């Protein structure tokens, strides 16, 4: 059974969103996603300063098996990326919700967060 922390929000395409104290949104992929992808070997992140729009592909994670697009769960300006992933993409496998975070966004419209799934709804979507 995959780990789905209750304090995060989720998308159907298996991204998680954490609302940070400074109002930014931190984004990563779920435990379920990392397990389905298998060993991650390459991550292509957005560049700090990029403007991203909800639903658009904005990053790529590649496992030994396949490449997978990451879709922006929210719109905003990228203010930080996880530079540790360049040398160690497997951090996403080992710790998808903490050390394996992908990037952080300054929100344009915080109401977009209301449209995301909570842990319970995300878990239900996995069972379908």
């Amino acid at each position, binding site marked *: 059974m995959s780990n789905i922390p209750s304090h995060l929000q989720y998308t159907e395409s298996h991204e998680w969103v954490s609302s940070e104290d400074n109002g930014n949104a931190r984004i990563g992929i779920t435990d379920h996603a990392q*397990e389905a992808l*298998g*060993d991650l*070997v*390459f991550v*292509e992140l957005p560049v700090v300063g990029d403007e991203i729009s909800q639903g658009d592909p904005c990053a*790529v994670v*590649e496992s*030994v*098996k*396949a*490449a997978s697009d990451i879709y922006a769960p929210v719109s905003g300006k990228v203010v930080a990326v996880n530079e540790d992933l*360049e040398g160690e993409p497997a951090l996403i*496998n080992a710790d998808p919700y903490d050390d394996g975070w992908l990037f952080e966004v300054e929100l344009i419209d915080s109401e977009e967060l209301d449209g995301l799934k909570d842990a319970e709804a995300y878990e239900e979507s996995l069972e379908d």
Partner: protein
Amino acid sequence: MLQHTPLYDAHIAAGARMVDFGGWEMPINYGSQIEEHHKVRQAAGMFDVSHMTVVDILGNQARHFLSYLLANDVAKLQTPGRALYTCMLNEAGGVIDDLITYFIEETHFRLVVNAATHDKDMAWITSQARAFDVEVKERPELAMVAVQGPEARAKVIALLDDADAQAAAELKPFSAAQFGDKFVARTGYTGEDGFEISLPADSATALWDQLLEAGVSPCGLGARDTLRLEAGMNLYGQDMDETVTPLESGLGWTLALKDDRAFVGKDALLKQKEEGVANRFVGLVLKDRGVLRPGQRVVTEAGEGITTSGSFSPTLQKAIAFARIPGGAAESCQVDIRGKLLGCAIVRPPFARNGTVCEGII
């Protein structure tokens, strides 16, 4: 409805992630594909390859038939137990399948062909066999386990009784022998030493459990793919198929063209040789960060080509690929990865074997 091998329950018990592979529900990994890959390069791993098709060719004309059916020459097999890697071609020289044939005795040869090509292979072999005094007999009751890695042979030998153990230890590469209910071949698809063991389905789980007990790691089809890619071994359906010949697939070395033996596809191959083979089959090593995949566009000075297999190499810690590119002496090229052209070195596979990176690769 997916087919299951006799080891299906053992895979589930070992925590395998199962996938559909050519109609068979097979383990892709048991956790980490990369760890499984390293186990085989550094110690010993085992793969369930029971989905592969074993076909015995029986009768007085067995050798004569295979001499006609196969592009490599079974005349090279003079000692019982010897094995030969070969392509089976159509009249146009296209590859119907690649396979290993074993010479067991004059009236008994064995073929091991791919699982995904089972139906067309059986139809082709059966139709070609009509003109010969042979029986084509499938052996679906056999399971097969590949035990591979520097420690693999010792792990298997330790399970045999004394007389068999000595004989198994003396098996030369590309040779096989029957020990009790086990047909043990010193062959593989990883670039490591090891055995491929065929045995009755109802004995398979006992062997698997004994090997597990002996510290051999279960490995899935994921690791099998990166191991064979590093080892410079082609995968049917990806690196070659009926639309290309062995000469365009890096398999010229498997063809026996020099004598006057007639075989299916020979005329087409001789014609292609005379006219000149337009494409080269090469290895690529990505210089930048990223991952090579099958089907990516390759840009060279002489024109465009395509990658046929590609992945991240756990041994090199770089992306590697096979590619079919236009002829010419280029040393480097570019590959289109999501619209970006990234530089690759052109090399001659294998990339890695026997635990280490091959000379001249990086």
